[in-house]
């Protein structure tokens, strides 16, 4: 007996016996070999029972040897935060220390309480969740749902953050080959020798595909698998080829954009910390060659899910690749030729094959003869109608398919083959249409929608020679089509014998026909039986898409790789329609489950999203700023001093700005430089205001509407020269305003000689506001006379500040006299520090966005997006003065005349005074005119801005209220959960109504 498991056969397989690996399964330690999958290592140790099924909690084993596995799903755990559920044991390679656990069982795998579902299964037939838990209504939320949620689900996800990193890369190639079996390797060699840039991906650790199990294949005089190793080596050595193993093509998108995911570290005992766990390759290929092979189908018979029952090709792979016999007494049940090879190989390796049960009456005579030579009994025209055993198959019940005596044959493993399903998933994802091939009874690629080709088994090409010839030709043609300098490749591959895989059967076998109350599984992962599918049809599901959703056949993570065709055949039979008339469901990405980590890849943690900081951010942080998120920007919100909460800090900042001065970082405002002889003309069209006559050195507050007449953005526009304007936008509006302006310029007014350049980030903007603003900034400014006479409110000039070039704006969003000093961004911090050092001893404070909001609300200045919601016109906002009365055209000129926009009673922006003098209204609160009316009350508006105003000594608010401009002095009501608040409608200016302070 081998150290690496009792079922390991000396001399068989391609693994090295000396390279042992220790791993655990459900806490028990086992030895496997380097290169084993968890499945092969467990079978080597005679472990077939690896999990419990989803719905009935039936004991389940290993069905396949590849990524199509529906059954053997386990959790794999590296540490507390690295526990991945639903890993296919047939894909996960073992490494020293691998820790795997079975799923969906409690308290243990061999004794599972949930298995009672199996006994109570009439309750859980197809569509049970639509029917069983409907009554009484209240029970769903409190009883059914919590219980079902606990019982359902496969595996457990970790609660900790995933500590691994994941990578992504866009990559371009002339030819992408999906699948590294004989077809894929040959096509890749052919294309690569032509000089094309080639990517070949294969989901296994090593290319080879079916050559891993098909012992009799010979290529170039070599055993098939040896040839594959050599071919992969040749490809890997070529500069124009990227060979990606452990890499699954999971999605085929428009224009040959294919997503691959490479498992980089899951097979390593101690990966380097910087290595990504997985890498997503986003491939753009000139041509895609799909060489995805075919997937063997299981036989549908009673209790076909017992551990130890598996696909014939899987058993053959375990033997020929991993050196593992799946049992000592192996029954065979088949409807095609390919299971014979597995039986013969097992027999030669020393296993007992008590019988090959062949559903066909006349199998290939040569195979029957060979079986005779090996001493294997062949029962033609017979069926396996049931399997004995519970935690492991113990026997098979065999009877003639036309009826007759049942023979129970003891076995410890049962291998089966219903035939091969071409893997058309990638083709179907590419939006190609499959076509039913009547002769061979399978769906094959039909109409292509993209620049791709299918070759080999997935294209229904049978036999090694035909596959190689097809692959050579398609590889060369693809290279020629995608790569202009392709040359004739010099690949020639001579082919020896190999089996043919056509034929087989679909649907339920004898003993599982309509009317039989047995569990003959079609879909192992979702526990769908043949009976469930018939029930779905009986209950009126006539479309295969409805059958799929009603039964959940094919809806598990394996997406029905084994079950779809069987399910379709059973439905077709029940509907009494031919299979192509019932149709196949659409295959969608991902081909196999793909981790969220891979999908998210780099976009997590610090680089989940850009975090934008202004040039003065560090200085503000050092001054104790609390920051708020404004889009992607971090903006200083308020600057609490020792012992201050937000309210106290904001009150102090508000007072200080009005009494002394405050300094504010306005750098995030959008800025656009508008340059050219037609600049004024262009702005005159984009804004509602008149701009033709704005003088050089002057500023104007501008409103920008959409064509429908609603306010889109606002900002201050300064004229620096006849042909140069400095435009500001809201912080959040910067990109869309530039886009909007470019749209009009490029597509409606392309003859205007004007260009737009974003300068948002060129300038750091330092606002100094308050009665002492001039005194504070004056010493730093050169080249500009800051006196009221020379530089009044709404002026702009260029000069220097602290010795660096500056654009100084005399403007105000606070109602105080003030300046917005623009300096090149890299100097922002230096200028900020200099002004602060002078201003602070004079009593100036730093203030944040909250104070800015309060101060502007005291003055009734709107914030677009807060006091407007995309349905507010300049008139509604009380800004009729900003519309150029003599202008014949501007964006919005016609929209503003629409009947709805000139109608009486529109919601209009007003101020609200709170009658109790202390309640601060909630922004978003609804307003009614009669609080005593029945619920639901008629809402006539809502609060858009609301603050405590320290300077007014009262709460202030703005609101959009129906017919608001005509309600001055009216009392309205704001109903809140703990009472109704009375308010009085007033104008929107709460402080310094005459505006004298602006000019101080």
């Amino acid at each position, binding site marked *: 007996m081998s150290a690496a498991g009792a079922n390991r056969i000396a001399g068989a397989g391609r693994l090295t016996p000396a390279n042992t690996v220790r791993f655990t399964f459900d806490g028990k330690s086992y030895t496997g070999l380097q290169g084993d999958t968890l499945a092969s290592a467990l079978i080597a140790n005679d472990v077939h029972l690896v999990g419990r099924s989803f719905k009935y909690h039936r004991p389940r084993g290993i069905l396949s040897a590849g990524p199509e596995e529906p059954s053997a799903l386990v959790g794999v755990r590296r540490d507390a935060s690295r526990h991945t559920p639903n890993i296919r044991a047939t894909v996960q390679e073992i490494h020293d220390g691998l820790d795997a656990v079975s799923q969906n069982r409690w308290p243990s795998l061999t004794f599972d309480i949930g298995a009672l579902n199996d006994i109570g299964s009439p309750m859980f037939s197809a569509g049970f969740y639509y029917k069983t838990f409907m009554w009484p209504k209240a029970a769903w939320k409190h009883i059914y749902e919590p219980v079902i949620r606990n019982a359902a689900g496969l595996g457990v996800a970790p609660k900790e953050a995933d500590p691994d990193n994941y990578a992504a890369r866009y990559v371009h190639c002339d030819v992408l080959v999906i699948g590294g079996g004989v077809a894929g390797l040959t096509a890749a060699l052919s294309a690569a020798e032509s000089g094309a840039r080639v990517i070949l991906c294969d989901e296994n650790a090593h290319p080879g595909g079916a050559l891993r199990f098909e012992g009799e294949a010979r290529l170039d005089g070599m055993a098939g698998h040896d040839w594959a190793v050599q071919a992969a080596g040749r490809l890997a050595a070529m500069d124009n080829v990227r060979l990606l193993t452990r890499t699954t093509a999971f999605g085929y998108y428009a224009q040959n954009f294919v997503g691959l995911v490479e498992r980089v570290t899951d097979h390593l005992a101690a990966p380097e910390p910087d290595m990504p766990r997985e890498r997503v390759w986003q491939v753009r290929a000139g041509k895609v060659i*799909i060489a995805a092979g075919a997937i063997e189908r299981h036989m549908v018979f009673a209790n076909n899910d017992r551990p130890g029952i598996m696909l014939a090709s899987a058993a053959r792979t375990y033997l020929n690749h991993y050196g593992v016999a799946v049992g000592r007494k192996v029954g065979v049940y088949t409807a095609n030729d390919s299971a014979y090879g597995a039986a013969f190989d097992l027999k030669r390796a020393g296993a007992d094959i008590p019988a090959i049960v062949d559903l066909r009456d006349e199998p290939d005579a040569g195979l029957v003869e060979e079986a005779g030579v090996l001493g294997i009994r062949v029962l033609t025209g017979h069926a396996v109608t049931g399997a004995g055993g519970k935690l492991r198959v113990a026997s098979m019940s065999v009877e003639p398919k036309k009826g007759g005596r049942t023979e129970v044959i003891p076995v410890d493993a049962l291998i089966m083959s219903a035939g091969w399903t071409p893997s058309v998933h990638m083709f179907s994802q590419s939006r190609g249409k499959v076509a039913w091939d009547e002769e061979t009874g399978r769906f094959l690629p039909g109409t292509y929608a993209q620049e791709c080709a299918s070759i080999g088994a997935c294209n229904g090409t049978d036999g090694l020679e035909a596959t190689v010839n097809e692959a050579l030709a398609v590889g060369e043609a693809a290279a020629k089509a995608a790569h202009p300098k392709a040359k004739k490749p010099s690949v020639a591959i001579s082919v020896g014998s190999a089996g043919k895989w056509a034929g087989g059967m679909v649907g339920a076998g004898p003993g599982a026909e309509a009317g039989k109350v047995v569990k003959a599984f079609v879909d192992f992962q979702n526990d769908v039986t043949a009976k469930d599918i018939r029930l779905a049809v009986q209950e009126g599901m006539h479309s295969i898409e409805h059958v799929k959703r009603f039964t959940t056949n094919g809806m598990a993570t394996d997406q029905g790789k084994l079950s779809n065709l069987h399910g379709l055949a059973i439905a077709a039979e029940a509907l009494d329609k031919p299979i192509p008339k019932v149709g196949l469901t659409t295959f969608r990405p991902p081909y196999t489950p793909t981790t969220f980590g891979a999908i998210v890849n780099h976009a997590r943690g610090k680089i989940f999203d850009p975090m934008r900081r202004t040039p003065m951010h560090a200085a503000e942080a050092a001054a104790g700023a609390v920051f708020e998120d404004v889009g992607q920007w971090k903006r200083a919100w308020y600057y609490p001093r020792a012992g201050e909460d937000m309210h106290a800090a904001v009150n102090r900042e508000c007072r200080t700005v009005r009494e002394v001065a405050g300094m504010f970082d306005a750098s995030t405002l959008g800025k656009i430089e508008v340059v050219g002889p037609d600049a004024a003309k262009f702005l005159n069209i984009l804004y509602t205001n008149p701009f033709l006559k704005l003088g050089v050195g002057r500023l104007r507050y501008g409103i920008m509407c959409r064509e429908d007449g609603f306010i889109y953005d606002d900002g201050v526009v300064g004229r620096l020269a006849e042909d140069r304007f400095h435009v500001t936008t809201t912080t959040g509006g910067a990109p869309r305003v530039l886009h909007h302006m470019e749209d009009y310029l*490029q597509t409606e007014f392309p003859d205007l000689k004007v260009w737009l350049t974003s300068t948002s980030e060129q300038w750091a903007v330092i606002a100094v506001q308050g009665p002492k603003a001039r005194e504070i900034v004056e010493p730093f400014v050169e080249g500009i006379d800051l006196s009221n006479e020379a530089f009044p409110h709404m002026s702009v000039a260029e000069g220097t500040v602290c010795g660096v070039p500056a654009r100084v704006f005399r403007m105000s969003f606070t109602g105080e006299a003030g300046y917005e000093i623009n300096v090149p961004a890299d100097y922002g911090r230096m200028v900020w520090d200099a002004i602060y050092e002078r201003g602070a001893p004079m009593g100036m404070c730093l203030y944040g966005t909250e104070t800015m909001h309060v101060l502007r609300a005291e003055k009734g200045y709107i914030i677009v997006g807060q006091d407007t919601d995309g349905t507010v016109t300049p008139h509604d906002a009380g800004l009729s003065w900003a519309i150029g009365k003599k202008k014949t055209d501007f964006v919005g000129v016609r929209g503003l005349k629409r009947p709805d926009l000139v109608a009486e009673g529109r919601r209009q922006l007003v101020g609200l005074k709170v009658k109790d003098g202390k309640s601060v209204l909630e922004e978003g609160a609804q307003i009614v005119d009669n609080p005593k009316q029945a619920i639901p009350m008629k809402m006539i508006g809502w609060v858009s801005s609301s603050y405590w105003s320290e300077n007014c000594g009262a709460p202030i608010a703005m609101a959009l209220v129906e017919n608001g401009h005509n309600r001055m002095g009216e009392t309205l009501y704001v109903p809140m959960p703990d009472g109704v608040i009375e308010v009085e409608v007033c104008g929107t200016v709460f402080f310094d109504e005459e505006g004298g302070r602006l000019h101080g």
Partner: protein
Amino acid sequence: MLLIHCPYCGEERPELEFRHAGEAHIARPENIAEISDEDFAHYFFYRDNPKGVTFERWRHMHGCGRFFNAVRDSVSDKFLTTYKAGEPKPDIADAANENQINTSKGQGAK
């Protein structure tokens, strides 16, 4: 992710660089201030959203920055052609012939 041929850059570029900008060939009326409510509604609000060949605007936002027009099949998502802003509406049949991928015979089709 689509590949979009930018008529200004002269090559196909990834969709991430582009932004869709609505239906094409809807000119802003020169006398917009005077048009009727109905004409304004047709200009600003009503869109055809046809199934099949559509004329649409795109902007190579994160590339050359230019707006351009495209003819695309809204069923297959395929672009039939793209052309510069201001150029006339192309003949659909010509565009379809020039750019259509041969959908009926992929190399491996049987």
